[in-house]
């Protein structure tokens, strides 16, 4: 039974990992924190819903278009919100993304209202028995999709020219410029990928928790996950996400069920107090 809970915890954790990944990608390459990551995911989900439910487009096309939308949203945010303030301190950009998250949330509320909407499942729901565990295909689907996405991203960053260039930019913008790398384009691409990752996260989770314009709050789980794993570290984002997901699912087992709401914050506070650099603990040295 516990194993069951852990497995569904891993599935939830995958979603958090994707959120944390989106946040970490942007932070690693630009040192900016994107508070609107969750809202980007939410809008993506609603786009898919609109295409599929309201415009009656086939499911696959709806999903594709909504992912396209999330990529465009990432690019748009980078171009309109981040680039004009590029020379400003990171504090400013953080507040700008804070504002963006409010804008997107209220905009979505106005367009789609604050109700909750059921979302079609991407995987036909069936139950599989694997030894002791009864797995739902949805859970399996989430875990596999996330794994596949992570693998793709890993291969992209490690082995492609553009991916390596993006890593280079995150390590030294100055040197990257001198290599002839278009750093601005690299930033835009980072935001685009980040948008895509959030979009996929939304599409995976929407069937399970229903679509709602308040979904964006999942960004806080993303932050907690990233900090738990080690802020600024990509493997940390993955680890932290899974860890948080498992924790959230296992805790109600031993504690009163309301504890679930408070877990991300307890984790946040706990990590920041005990070991702010998280599990992987990458420390960035500041140049004076």
């Amino acid at each position: 039974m516990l194993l069951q809970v852990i497995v569904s915890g891993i599935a939830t954790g995958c979603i958090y990992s994707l959120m944390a990944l989106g946040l970490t990608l942007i932070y690693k390459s630009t040192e900016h924190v994107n508070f609107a990551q969750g809202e980007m995911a939410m809008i993506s989900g609603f786009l898919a819903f609109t295409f599929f439910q309201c415009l009656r487009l086939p499911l696959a096309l709806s999903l594709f278009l909504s992912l396209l939308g999330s990529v465009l949203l990432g690019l748009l945010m980078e171009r309109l919100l981040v680039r004009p303030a590029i020379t400003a301190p990171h504090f400013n950009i953080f507040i700008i993304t804070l504002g963006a998250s409010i804008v997107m949330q209220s905009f979505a509320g106005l367009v789609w209202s604050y109700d909750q909407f059921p979302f079609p499942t991407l995987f036909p729901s069936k139950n599989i028995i694997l030894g002791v565990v009864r797995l739902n295909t949805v859970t399996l689907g989430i875990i596999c999709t996330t794994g596949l996405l992570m693998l793709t991203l890993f291969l992209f960053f490690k082995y492609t020219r553009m991916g390596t260039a993006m890593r280079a930019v995150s390590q030294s913008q100055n040197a990257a410029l001198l290599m002839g790398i278009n750093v601005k384009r690299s930033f835009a691409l980072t935001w685009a990928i980040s948008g895509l990752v959030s979009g996929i996260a939304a599409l995976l989770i929407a069937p399970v928790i229903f679509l709602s314009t308040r979904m964006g709050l999942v960004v806080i789980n993303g932050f907690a996950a990233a900090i738990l794993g080690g802020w600024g570290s990509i493997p940390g984002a993955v680890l932290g996400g899974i860890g948080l997901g498992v924790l959230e699912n296992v805790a109600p087992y031993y504690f009163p069920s309301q504890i679930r709401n408070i877990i991300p914050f307890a984790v946040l506070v706990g990590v920041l107090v005990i070991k702010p650099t998280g599990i992987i603990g990458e420390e960035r040295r500041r140049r004076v």
Partner: protein
Amino acid sequence: MVFFTRRRIIFLAGVGILFFLSPLILNRYTIFILNLFAIYALVSIGLNLVMGYTGQIAAGHAGFLAIGAYFTAIVSTKMGWIPPIAVLLAAGLFTGVIGFLLGIPILRLKGFYIAMATLAFGVVVSEIVLQWSSLTHGDDGFRVPRAILWGFIFDSDKKLFYLVQPITIGMILMAMNIVRTRVGRAFLAIRQSEIASQTMGIHLAKYKTSAFAVSAFYTGVAGGLFAYVITHISPDSFSLGVSIDFIAMIVIGGMGSILGSIIGAVILTGIQQVLSGLPEVQLLIFGVLLILFMIFMPRGISGMILDWRGRLRKGPSFEPASKEDG
């Protein structure tokens, strides 16, 4: 600093008299709004001390507001014989101590981590308030008893005006005093560069935690006043969104400036009231304003005023807000 020149004092006295006589002619709703302006101005000043002055991002001030409000509500109910000023003072001190305690672990954190920690704090407080229903009546909300001072019952907005405004004005003056002293300048220096200020002998820990403590004090008192004015408080009024509203106030009004805090509070509360039936539109406008100001006018409205004044005449004006963006 020659802020209080003879002409200024006479001018202010005149304005002051008019101001204090105004409830006689204004309608109830306007007076209520003026009270709200005052309360949020106090929160704004409090938040500015931490964010605008020492540069620590605080995304959980609704938590301090809640602590002040519920402290006041509970003490007034259980010990109604204590005069409201004392209750408010106690609420402020209680919240201030909590702020100080919060400031200590935060010392080890930087920038974005502080934002997350304070955010978590705000939500945890709101969750505690919700869950500890035996003390706070949780979701149902708490009916705050009327403030009674020597038999005088503050049972109308007009009467509350005379409780809220003097306290607010007093605290504003106190804040102006704080920022004008070494303490205030130390705060500003810390925002510009922690490392540089350390080399100048500024004891970082002392100042950063005191900033939190004073900030919490102000917000706590504001919370108490809030409880008296709104008369019925519930956890909804202290959500994460509220904390973000506060940030919007000081960004728009101007960080690192007391005048800015007041301006920001007035503008946002004004918008809130004008659009009171349309919370989404409110939020949308706040968000857009937040973005626009942060991109184009990071020093806020008070920053603009300073620029404009600087061009007219050279000389000390309201507050020496930092010249560069911190």
